[in-house]
């Protein structure tokens, strides 16, 4: 067997890991494409044809509002149809309830509940649309889509977490630029999106999902007053009650019909008021929309028909709708609402709009005005196309190409993409101009008009579809390349590991250890660990398995513990030699039982996931039983963590000054954390007070200096003791490698220092978590610590009977199960952002005050409740992950971040421990460690790839979360959103922990070659990188969870 040199090993490993990282970044890059969006807002230039070559600079729009308004009127050439707009948003109302489905009228109960609306539809006074919403079907992205007409890229969901104000061009901004006064009553999402834009507002929170009455009364109580006023141009009413009814009882809830009746009353009230005031106030348009639908159970978030089936109902158009059927059986896209409203109300279409105007709503206009509207929409879309296709230049297709012959709609446009758009556009434009010239000469015919309309619609439809699909399409070659690179690196690392394994086997065979009689039985745990990887990859194919992943991890880890129990019994010495090993055996048995019991308690702490969140669990029980109990549990856990910390520090064989110093640091930081808990965690106000922030910062400082100091200094000061071979108290001296005594003592010192470093790291992590996590999570943290320690002890007692990678993956399982036990889930909504406020959170308080505006004092958020989304209101805040591949991706994405975190949290320190436990096998560890990481990464990748493949054939058009990209919020007016929340994103780039792993290998090799002089010990050079990790762990503090409806 060829002996690999240390150098080549290192190089190959490094290469493998680097390839892995490159592949991963390529994959992520390809998978989450960032689409260019146009900045700025549409101005007067949008009423001029897009100039192909010259830059479109029409000067800045600094006109006063009323001038701008008349300028727009002049330029557009369409008399504004309406002066006032009432936007009635009924959250979560499926269009099916009002319009029926597939030609059938809605359910009888619903028909009867909404007599007025149905009569409007039947009399041709209203026209309704099934407006298809793009996922994620949750409120904020949908509102953004409605007002801007844009579909955001996937990553916007993640990047815009704490973005509140909408910076993109949108209808409300346009209205305000022409001096409209706006009033909003209802969901406070509007206030977050458009701070300072409303002259009057009353925001209600969507937070109290159980409240179906008050939440709507808070809106309706303003109705009479507002309708009698004439100082507004836009009135937005956003009713949340119906969504809440859905969340509580699903579509068939008993409360549904009464709620619909209430909404019908609102429509009736508004419409009668419009009718009575029609003449003196100008024309008012009432648009009833819903932001999304709901599933049979009342959830939403995905892209199923039920969820995406939102309503768009135009009431008060003066056009002529013939019958009930044609008023109800129309479909549109939700984004179409934006251009339609813009054109009806005489403002430029927002820049990033991908919607197409809804033709029937313009029926009351004259022919030339209708064509003009189509033309304006085409210009806007053409500009957007121009921005997205770099070489879209229609200059070379001159008008002459068309004008010599009689242009017709049937002109074939099957060229390349750019040419096709140009061709379609020019076709329509030419037809339009011909029609216009003919009209002047009074010779225009209906056919000409018709063909122009068709040509325009053809272009608009093609462009709109292409633009929305742009948001989802992914560069396949990039993805393939990324996957290949990752597979390659996996192969490299795998072959390396196999090679190493063979060598080590050989060495072991040469030396000793082959008295084992039942080798074949020992493999069950190894087979199982490998099987788990397979099971995980397979389970990722099922969306509910992704939603309920915590069950899998708990099941797997418990099964592994049971297998370890079985193995312990197997390895029990035969009865004749029972006396010798029985104590050891008993300890091992006990440790497995401790693992099982604490694992089960951890599992019972939080009912995560989506489907079973309502079941009772320990955290709910504790919270209901009152703050005192929570606090007691928290304090007990804190004290136990500190005590455990000392116990394990004292296990070290050498009790020298270093240990004392580290111990002292432990004590100080432990006490600080306890004091912080006692003093400041009473309520959110105290939590964010100045003193609390200072104390938290002090804890950070102490913990940071402890870990860094230990890592840097302990290898230098760790005494080299010339001890006998492995003292009896040495828990990690399970192997004795024949070597000379001096070598041994150096290794012992190395071992000890690594032990101290690893332990300081784990302990600091626990204290940090105690500080940052919710009080309810203190006990899970303690249990996690106990589990980690018990498993380490178990493995060190059982000696060489376990393979190292089995041990490391056991710790990994523990980490994953523990991650979910802390109340996390694969939904972005459960990311607990409260921790971000603890250290940098003075602004937090303001946030509190703002959310509880005086008007809904009864509903004001109390205590720190507002940030604990998962515990209070998990049903509502979970982005329901129903059968929805893209959100699953999101899950995987967030999971992936977590996974990296967990790797840092557990595997790394664990690896250090193992290294210190078994000094000679250290080299092996490093490879195994990177193997584990590679495995976990590749399982992630494979699931991603599988997802992608699954997703590819399905119409990619609408699957994009249509959150418009919102640049980082300028938000000068509302300081509610502390920027403090931004730091989280850096966690992603922080993955580079991976590359650190491969740097380890040289370390153990050093002692082998020559005995390095102590000060030049290579360890200090590599170790300092570790302590950086704790700073990344905290929670991913995305600020607010996705705005739930």
């Amino acid at each position: 067997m060829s002996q690999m040199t240390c150098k080549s090993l290192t190089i190959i490993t490094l290469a493998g890991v680097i390839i892995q990282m490159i592949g991963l970044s390529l994959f992520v890059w390809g998978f989450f494409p960032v689409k260019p969006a146009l900045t700025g807002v549409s101005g007067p230039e949008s009423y001029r044809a897009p100039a192909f070559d010259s830059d479109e600079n029409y000067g800045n729009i600094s006109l006063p509002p009323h001038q701008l308004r008349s300028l727009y009127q002049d330029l557009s050439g369409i008399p504004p149809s309406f002066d006032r707009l009432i936007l009635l948003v009924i959250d979560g109302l499926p269009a099916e309830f009002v319009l029926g489905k597939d030609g059938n009228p809605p359910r009888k109960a619903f028909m009867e509940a909404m007599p007025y609306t149905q009569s409007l539809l039947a009399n041709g006074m209203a026209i309704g649309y099934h407006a298809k919403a793009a996922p994620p079907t949750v409120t904020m992205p949908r509102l953004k889509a409605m007002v801007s007409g844009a579909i955001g890229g996937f990553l916007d969901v993640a990047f815009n977490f704490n973005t509140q104000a909408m910076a993109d061009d949108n209808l409300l901004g346009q209205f305000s630029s022409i001096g409209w006064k706006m009033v909003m009553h209802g969901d406070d999402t509007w206030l977050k999106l458009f701070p300072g834009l409303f002259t009057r507002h009353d925001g209600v929170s969507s937070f109290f999902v159980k409240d179906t009455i008050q939440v709507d009364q808070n809106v309706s109580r303003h109705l009479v007053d507002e309708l009698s006023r004439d100082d507004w141009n836009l009135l937005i009413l956003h009713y949340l009650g119906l969504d809440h009814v859905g969340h509580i009882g699903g579509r068939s809830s008993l409360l549904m019909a009464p709620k619909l009746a209430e909404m019908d009353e609102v429509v009736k009230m508004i419409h009668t008021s419009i009718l009575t005031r029609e003449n003196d106030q100008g024309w008012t348009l009432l648009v009833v929309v819903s932001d999304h639908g709901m599933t049979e159970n009342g959830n939403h978030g995905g892209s199923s028909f039920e969820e995406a089936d939102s309503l768009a109902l135009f009431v008060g158009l003066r056009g002529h709708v013939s019958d009930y059927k044609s008023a109800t059986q129309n479909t549109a896209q939700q984004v179409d609402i934006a251009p339609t409203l813009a054109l009806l109300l005489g403002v430029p279409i927002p820049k990033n709009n991908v919607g197409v105007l809804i033709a029937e709503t313009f029926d009351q206009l004259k022919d030339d005005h209708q064509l003009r509207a189509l033309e304006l929409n085409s210009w806007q879309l053409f500009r957007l196309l121009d921005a997205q296709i770099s070489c879209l230049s229609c200059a070379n297709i001159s008008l002459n190409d068309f004008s010599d012959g009689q242009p017709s709609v049937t002109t074939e446009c099957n060229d390349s993409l750019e040419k096709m758009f140009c061709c379609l556009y020019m076709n329509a434009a030419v037809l339009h101009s011909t029609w216009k010239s003919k009209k002047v000469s009074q010779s225009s015919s209906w056919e000409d008009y018709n063909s122009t309309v068709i040509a325009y619609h053809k272009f608009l439809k093609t462009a709109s579809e292409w633009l929305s699909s742009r948001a989802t399409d992914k560069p396949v070659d990039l993805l393939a390349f990324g996957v290949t690179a990752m597979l390659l690196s996996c192969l490299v690392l795998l072959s390396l590991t196999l090679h190493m394994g063979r060598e080590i086997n050989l060495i072991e065979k040469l030396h000793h250890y082959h008295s084992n009689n039942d080798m074949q039985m020992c493999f069950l745990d190894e087979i199982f660990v490998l099987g788990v990887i397979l099971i995980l990859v397979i389970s990722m194919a099922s969306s509910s398995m992704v939603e309920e992943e915590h069950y899998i991890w708990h099941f797997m880890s418990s099964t592994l513990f049971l297998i370890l129990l079985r193995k312990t019994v197997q390895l029990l010495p035969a009865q004749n030699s029972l006396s010798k090993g029985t104590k050891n055996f008993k300890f091992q048995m006990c440790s497995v039982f401790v693992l099982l019991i604490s694992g089960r308690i951890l599992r019972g702490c939080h009912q995560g996931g989506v489907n079973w969140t309502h079941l009772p669990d320990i955290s709910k029980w504790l919270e209901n039983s009152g703050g005192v109990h929570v606090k007691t549990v928290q304090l007990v856990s804190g004290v136990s963590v500190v005590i455990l910390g000392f116990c394990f520090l004292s296990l070290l064989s050498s009790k020298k000054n270093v240990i004392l110093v580290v111990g002292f640091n432990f004590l100080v930081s432990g006490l600080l954390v306890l004091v912080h808990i006692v003093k400041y965690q009473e309520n959110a106000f105290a939590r964010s007070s100045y003193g609390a922030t200072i104390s938290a910062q002090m804890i950070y400082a102490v913990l940071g200096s402890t870990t860094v100091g230990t890592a840097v200094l302990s290898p230098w000061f760790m005494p080299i003791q010339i001890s006998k071979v492995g003292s009896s108290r040495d828990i990690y001296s399970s192997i004795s490698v024949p070597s000379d005594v001096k070598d041994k003592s150096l290794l012992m010192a190395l071992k000890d220092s690594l032990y101290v470093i690893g332990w300081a790291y784990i302990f600091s992590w626990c204290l940090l978590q105690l500080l940052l996590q919710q009080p309810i999570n203190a006990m899970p943290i303690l249990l996690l610590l106990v589990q980690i320690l018990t498993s380490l002890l178990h493995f060190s007692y059982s000696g060489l009977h376990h393979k190292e990678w089995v041990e490391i993956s056991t710790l990994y399982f523990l980490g994953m199960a523990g991650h979910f036990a802390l109340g996390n889930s694969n939904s972005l909504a459960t990311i607990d952002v409260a921790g971000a406020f603890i250290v940098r959170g003075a602004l937090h308080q303001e946030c509190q005050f703002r959310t509880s505006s005086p008007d809904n004092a009864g509903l004001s958020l109390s205590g720190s409740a507002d940030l604990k989304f998962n515990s209070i209101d998990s049903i509502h805040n979970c982005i329901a992950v129903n059968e929805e591949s893209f959100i699953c991706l999101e899950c995987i994405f967030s999971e992936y971040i977590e996974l990296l975190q967990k790797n840092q949290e557990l595997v790394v320190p664990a690896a250090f421990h193992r290294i210190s436990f078994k000094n000679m096998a250290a080299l092996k560890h490093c490879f195994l460690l990177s193997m584990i990481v590679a495995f976990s990464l590749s399982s992630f990748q494979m699931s991603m790839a599988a997802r992608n493949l699954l997703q590819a054939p399905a119409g990619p058009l609408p699957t994009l979360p249509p959150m418009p990209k919102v640049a980082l919020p300028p938000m000068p007016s509302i300081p509610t959103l502390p920027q403090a929340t931004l730091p989280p994103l850096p966690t992603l780039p922080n993955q580079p922990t991976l590359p650190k792993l491969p740097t380890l290998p040289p370390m153990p090799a050093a002692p082998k070659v020559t005995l390095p002089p102590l000060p030049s010990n290579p360890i200090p050079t590599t170790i300092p990188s570790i302590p950086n990790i704790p700073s990344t762990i905290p929670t991913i503090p995305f600020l607010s969870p996705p705005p739930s409806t």
Partner: protein
Amino acid sequence: MVKASTTENPSQSVSPMQTFFIHLICGVGLAVGLWVAHNFYSISLISNPSRTLRLIWVTMCPLVILFYSCFRKNPEKCSYLKAVIRGVLALPIGALVNALGAIALGAPVGIQYFPKTVNWSLLMSLFTFVPAASVFGSSWEDWRRIFAHTKPNASVDYMICLPAHGAVIGAWFGAWPMPLDWERPWQEWPICVSYGAMAGYLITMVLSFVLVLARGGQQHPKAD
């Protein structure tokens, strides 16, 4: 019963026919339990899991204990009655172990689940512990050989070891559909786990018969 008592002498070495007979009895007992529940009480595992499980284990209990006791180890030292008593004692103990195992793996805890868990674990005990207790008694070495090492030597070992493992593994796999959101009534604890356990039990009984049949010829040389 009469037939069984006449064949009790060869104790350790069991003929394939006897294996087949025992397995058939156990399988029939299981089926009868289900059948009685379905036809006489008009309940099923889905509509009333707790009562159905109770019916099954009550039906199977005497069959398993009485028949497996015929193959007890060291028949000369240990009377038939003693073996039966051992089996009866092992029933609650095994149920406790099974219940703890299930709870460790995530079975729900709570008053409303208690009867279900109890009846399920009694049934599991009949699949796993009771036969072993009737045959081996408290012989730690034998237990370890069967359950920890999974090294059956004699035919009777196969008869005990394989179905027990099959039931446990079947139950383990049976738990997989539980977190899925199909919203079927049988996804509740312990319905699909019971189905999995029964399926595993039945399959491995057939397997055990086949193995006993296969090693029928070379039984004696391999016994040492």
